């Protein structure tokens, strides 16, 4: 018990100090790297709190892909975006105002943390309300899968997941509308190439495994999609231009695969006289796997697009710019 307590305290302290360090520095690259480390420790915390599904997603998406996105943003100097609009403060009165503002906001934030912690403590002090968790386990047998988290994500609260895929699609379309992709990376040396050569197939294999295993153990479409996207990011970093991602119309198909498969299943069932997304228990497992496969493709396509930062350009003959 005490060993666990020591681990808990270590975890919590490193979380807080990493977050503070990431936010206190003015160096953008340092901040991003510390944030990635924060994400990895957070994944450990999820594991400690018995949330392996979340730990997998955090490691892949929260630390990995977010980190890759933020790092390329630093490379593109995107962190300067809002800065120029603020003029440096010279006058004494303005500087005093700024200090007052900082203190007010800081005190308000501390008050907020205290209030939240106090209310949370009151909520914990009551008998835990397990009604929903019990309802999940009572209906797990007819949900089509045996991993309760997957059952919630793709059956009981599948509508949330449908809207979440719509959020991903919206982000991709928004990025699309802003213009073409940034120039690629220069070709890596033989060592990284060699790593990519076996890492990419291994990642694709892992993605397939995660998708399949999600039905009865931690894993699922989101973790699998993120792993697939990671494979593409590795290829891109190795200097491959289009990383096997389709361009033009086929890319659109990949991006909307998740939403359209969800809608097709939901509306199909509605037409057959069942509720929207009300799978018949006998088919539930198959339908969920179908939706998850499409969702994995959409997630991977969207995350890779986000990493590209725009529409991929189909002009492989042109020499690539290096930055």
């Amino acid at each position: 018990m005490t060993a666990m307590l020591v681990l808990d305290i270590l975890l919590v302290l490193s979380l807080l100090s990493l977050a503070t360090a990431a936010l206190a520095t003015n160096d953008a690259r340092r901040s991003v790297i510390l944030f990635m480390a924060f994400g990895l420790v957070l994944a450990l915390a999820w594991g400690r709190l018995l949330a392996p599904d979340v730990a997998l997603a955090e490691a892949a998406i929260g630390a990995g892909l977010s980190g890759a996105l933020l790092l390329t943003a630093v490379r593109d100097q995107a962190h300067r975006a809002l800065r120029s609009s603020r003029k440096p403060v010279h006058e004494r009165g303005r500087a005093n105002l700024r200090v007052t503002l900082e203190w007010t906001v800081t005190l308000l934030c501390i008050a907020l943390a205290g209030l939240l912690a106090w209310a949370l403590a009151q909520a914990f002090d009551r008998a835990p309300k397990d009604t929903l968790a019990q309802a999940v386990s009572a209906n797990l047998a007819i949900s089509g899968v045996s991993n309760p988290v997957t059952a919630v994500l793709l059956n009981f609260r599948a509508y949330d997941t449908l809207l979440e895929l719509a959020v991903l699609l919206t982000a991709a379309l928004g990025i699309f509308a802003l213009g073409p992709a940034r120039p690629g990376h220069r070709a890596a040396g033989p060592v990284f190439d060699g790593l990519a050569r076996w890492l990419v197939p291994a990642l694709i294999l892992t993605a397939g495994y995660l998708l399949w295993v999600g039905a009865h153990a931690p894993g699922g479409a989101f973790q699998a999609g993120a792993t697939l996207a990671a494979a593409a990011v590795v290829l891109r970093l190795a200097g491959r231009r289009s990383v096997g991602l389709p361009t033009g119309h086929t890319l659109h198909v990949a991006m909307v695969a998740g939403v359209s498969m969800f809608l097709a299943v939901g509306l199909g069932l509605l037409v057959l006289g069942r509720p929207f997304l009300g799978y018949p228990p006998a088919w539930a497992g198959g339908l969920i796997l179908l939706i998850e496969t499409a969702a994995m493709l959409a997630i991977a396509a969207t995350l890779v697009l986000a990493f590209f930062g725009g529409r991929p350009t189909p002009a492989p003959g042109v020499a690539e710019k290096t930055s």
Partner: protein
Amino acid sequence: MAETLIWLIAMPMAGAVATLLLPRQSTPIACVTAVAASLVAGTLLYAVSEQGSLSYEIGGWSAGLGIALRADGLSALLLMMTALVMLASSVYAGTYFTKAAARARFWPLWLLLWTSLNALLLSGDLFNLYVTLELLGLSAVALASFGGKFAAVQAALRYLLLGLLGSMMFLAGVSLIYAGYGTLDLATLTLAVEPEPVAWTALALMSAGLLLKTALFPLHFWLPPAHASASAPVSAVLSALVVKVAFYLLVRLWMDVFADLVTPAAAGLLGVMGAAAILWGSWQALRTERLKLLAAWSTVAQLGYLFLFFPVLLALPPGPARDTAFGGLVILALTHGLAKAGLFLAIGIIQQRSGHDRINELNGTAQRLPATTFAIALAGVALIGLPPSGAFLGKWQLLAGSFASGQWLWILVTIAGSLLAAAYIFRVLGHAFGNQSYPRHSVTIAREEWPALILTTLAVAGLGLAGAPVWNLLESGA
């Protein structure tokens, strides 16, 4: 009948997918989707007026384990307003974006925004509301930056960051609710919630997030640049609908789910912020030099009126008196939505025809674009709150309620705000009706001008002269 609820969400979403997959046919697909979704919204309105509130359990799972969609009179009316504004703006957007490639990129985002608006108005689950808020925020930002102009992208980025802050506050409140009550379903929560620290901390967090999204003074600073630098059909929808659905959610939480918690002091705070918004927003609208900024600042002010209703409603005894005043709030919100959308569309026409929207250089607009100028005048009638517009009925209820509860301050603010609104509207009209020395023949472009004209006419005549059904509907759908 309950299936209409899911169709209202599935239809625009399917339209978004279809426009993306068939970019060449995207404009006809979008128009068909818009008409169909509006018909479904009309059907829902009729169904709610006949049968009272409706609900639909997605996947057949009971609410709690699953997610339920619900529609009562309030949400049905707002859904109808959303449909009208989106339909009219869709028709206008089809002519506004002249390049087919731009249209093909625009429609999917547009229809996703519509999906999120409908989903938010129908959702009966707190976490699902968080997801719809994010969908709404992201699609609104993507549309606000559409076209990629520097000012628009900059405003959109700030809009996105503040929207994300708001959503995170909302989510923090949601997690507290789940910790305390073990449910996310609004109907279950309404019965379970008690006036205790867990509930009011959660309500405070969620409200803070939503106030940021509704741009209530002093959290309004992101709104004018974002709304004024977007393209015209997008500005129309941002000002008329996007801030309004966040307000709807506040009303839902304060008047319905957490009604037992709301104290006069809290409602009074909202009222004071609303009063400040009215005065400051109207003043800024009067001072600005650009027509689009004027419309955006006017949105800040008009949202303020909606918040004045909070202390007034709370001071009235529950029952017919409060219900009548509540009808005034709804009709004011509906009128503002229709009128402001029409105003932005009309401004878009002027901006495209004359290449600018500087108020001082509007001379001759009435000669060149008579129908558009008329639409602006009609929108002005609604924004000032003159009879016979719906806003007159709304403000009348606000004044009557303040009078009955002896809250004189709100009466003064309302009168001052209306005078300021009259000043900024007449300033525009004065310039627009100013004669231009050299003659220009007038043009009328039906497909461009009709949407603005219809929306503003509905705001003035439709809601003003036929306001009674609104009260009936709110009653039957309660």
